[in-house]
């Protein structure tokens, strides 16, 4: 096995494995310190980055951070590696790969062509050599567009997942939050409820609730109830209106086992959902959630840093052609991402790695009450992600999720980002908003929502709900 080392001012820094090298090169964060894999000093971190910068990308096709025989995610990465697509970048080092990605000569089409050959470890490696501005600049060059009833991810557009959660799944309470979001131009990525209950019948009722609203108001969007994929399979068998199958996923087989899933269950869930034939435009019917730290939380991290493991989630995701992938970046808590600075960095890293690998990334810009973060940090992150071309963000009434007890982004936040960056909703949804009088010619939600159309909308909606 290769030994990685460098000398800085007479001191030798040595890293025994590729996994250790990646971990030591990662920007400081509490989760890696908790796992005992972080660099012990800033100079050691820089030493690791110097070694990483000179490492040929091809090393990542030869040395595996988690053994092939131990982990089905590794087997997926190795078995689906696209050698032909790799050719244009096969002679580059990680440092040169960063420059290649940033180069004016490297078009979005060129990046898209090599995307299938970019393994999660390559993405993580180059990510560790990039500053925040690099993560934004390159992600912006990697649009990933997916279609269902709306088209999400087009440059110049920002979509929103409307998240109308309620602590007891009260249908009226959920309906009220949905209406609030629709009136504020949210819901074009999807309307997705985190149920308080894992009761399958209740999940079916919630799907019916969204379906009635969608059909009665003719809203171009799709729906999801975020219940375990085994529940979704049961819902499909009952012919419930399942647009998207949800699952939390992780970057190792053992952590996925902690979620009660493996790759074959994901495949089964996807096939079940596809059997309903509800996506009129493509076979993208999966909605995945991820977030740095899940593997450590499940004690299934194999000594690998959390950013590299997060990138491995995107290898899992892209194998199932998802419509949306969402990194719930600050949900997990301060033991993994301690403060606003770490959450902002992680959000940009996740979005970059996902986009680079061809995954339709959205970000739940969020934090919990035990993290050292606040609304100002979220304003910074959502603005940066809008600039980077994020596919979608969350829309929660007043940014306060009353079921999951954390702070996400509000419908207002999405309006702000669209306004300052000149972004529009998904085209189909944009047209609908204009037709029902919820968006003016200036692309803004009108100050007075008192038009006959909107009143009729509310009336019909209230009856339908």
């Amino acid at each position, binding site marked *: 096995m290769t030994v990685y080392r460098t000398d800085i001012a007479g001191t030798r820094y040595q890293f025994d494995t590729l996994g250790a090298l990646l971990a030591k090169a990662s920007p400081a964060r509490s989760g890696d310190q*908790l796992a005992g894999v972080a660099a012990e000093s800033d100079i050691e971190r820089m030493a690791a980055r110097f070694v990483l910068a000179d490492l040929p990308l091809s090393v990542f096709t030869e040395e595996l951070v988690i053994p092939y025989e131990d982990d089905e995610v590794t087997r997926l990465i190795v078995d689906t590696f696209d050698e032909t697509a790799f050719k244009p970048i096969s002679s580059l080092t990680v440092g040169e790969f960063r420059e290649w990605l940033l180069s004016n000569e490297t078009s979005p089409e060129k990046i898209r062509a090599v995307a299938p050959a970019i393994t999660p470890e390559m993405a993580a490696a180059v990510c560790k050599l990039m500053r925040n501005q690099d993560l934004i600049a390159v992600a912006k060059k990697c649009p990933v567009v997916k279609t269902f009833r709306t088209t999400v991810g087009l440059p110049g557009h920002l979509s929103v997942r409307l998240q*109308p959660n*309620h*602590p*007891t799944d*009260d249908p*009226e*309470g959920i309906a*009220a*939050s949905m*209406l*609030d979001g629709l009136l504020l131009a949210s819901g074009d990525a999807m309307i997705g409820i*985190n*149920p*308080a*209950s*894992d*009761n399958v*019948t*209740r999940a079916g009722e919630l799907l019916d609730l969204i379906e009635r609203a969608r059909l009665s108001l003719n809203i171009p969007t799709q729906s999801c109830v975020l*219940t*375990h994929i085994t*529940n979704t399979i049961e819902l499909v068998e009952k012919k419930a209106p399942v647009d998207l199958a949800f699952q939390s996923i992780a970057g190792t087989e053992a952590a996925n086992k*902690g*979620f*009660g899933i493996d790759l074959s269950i994901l495949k089964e869930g996807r096939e079940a959902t596809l059997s309903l034939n509800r996506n009129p435009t493509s076979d993208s019917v999966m909605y995945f*959630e991820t*977030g740095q*730290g899940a593997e450590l*939380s*499940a004690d299934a991290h194999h000594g690998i840093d959390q950013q590299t493991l997060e990138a491995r989630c995107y290898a899992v995701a892209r194998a199932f052609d998802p419509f949306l992938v969402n990194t*719930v970046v600050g*949900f*997990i*808590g301060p*033991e*993994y991402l*301690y403060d606003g600075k770490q959450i902002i960095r992680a959000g940009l890293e996740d979005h970059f790695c996902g986009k680079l690998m061809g995954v339709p990334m959205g970000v739940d810009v969020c934090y*919990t*009450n*035990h993290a050292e973060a606040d*609304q100002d940090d979220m304003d910074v992150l959502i603005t940066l992600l809008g600039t980077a071309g994020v596919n979608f963000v969350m829309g929660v*009434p*007043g*940014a*306060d999720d*009353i079921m999951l*007890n*954390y*702070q996400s982004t*509000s419908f*207002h936040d999405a*309006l702000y980002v*669209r*306004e300052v960056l000149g972004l529009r909703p998904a085209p189909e949804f944009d047209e609908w908003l204009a037709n029902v009088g919820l968006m003016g010619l200036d692309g*803004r939600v009108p*100050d007075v*929502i008192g038009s006959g159309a909107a009143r009729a909308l*509310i009336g019909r909606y*209230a009856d339908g709900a």
Partner: protein
Amino acid sequence: MAHENSKTPDFFARWRDVTSARIGLGRAGQAMPTGAMLDFLLSHARARDAVHSALDVEKLKAELDGPAHHVFSRACDRAAFLQNPTSGRKLSPDCVLGNERKELAIVLADGLSATAIQDHGAKIANALKAQLSDKWTICDFVIAEQSRVALGDEIGEQLGADVVVVLIGERPGLSAADSVGAYITWKPKSGRADSERNCISNIREPGGLSLELGAANIAWIVNRAKELSLTGVGLKDRFADEVALKGASSAPNQITGEGE
């Protein structure tokens, strides 16, 4: 919530008693009006204070129907607890519980809101004990400080229980700093995965699942666990179907991390 934008009628008045969501706030340009923004920041300040609250153990003991052990995790204080969750999942070496040779253990754990357990813990635990005492032998209660969900595994294992119920203060949200979560684990022992537990969340009054219904739902899962000899993804919670009660709910631990 103040409705600031006088130009827009409050369409949402009719729903304000069915949800505490911050709906119909109005707008200043694209942003929230000043009053709504300040309300939010005040709620955040309250939640931050709840995270750092501590349990009054003597008061809690006095409210419980029966004796209680008092144990600590390895986290020496709140700061260590927040930064190192592993320390909150292991018992302090000073805390050793004997095998009580009974089937069910009930743990009251501070988690991320001692406020929640202080306010509701005894009532839920007492109701649960009352509902199960005819069919189950029940260990003395255990009060655990600086405790995460998984501390219940070691507690249940030491007590020799078949099932452990951990009532724990959930991470405070903006609208509620007093939600209790209940985690039910069959054959508790160190190293159980989250997928091997069932969870009921948002037990609180008012505003969440009532304490009485919460206890009834926990009891349903505990009985079902005995029938199936398991908990977790293999045990589907059909409590709401069976009792056909509106407003009853339970939640899987389905998002990354612990639902504490």
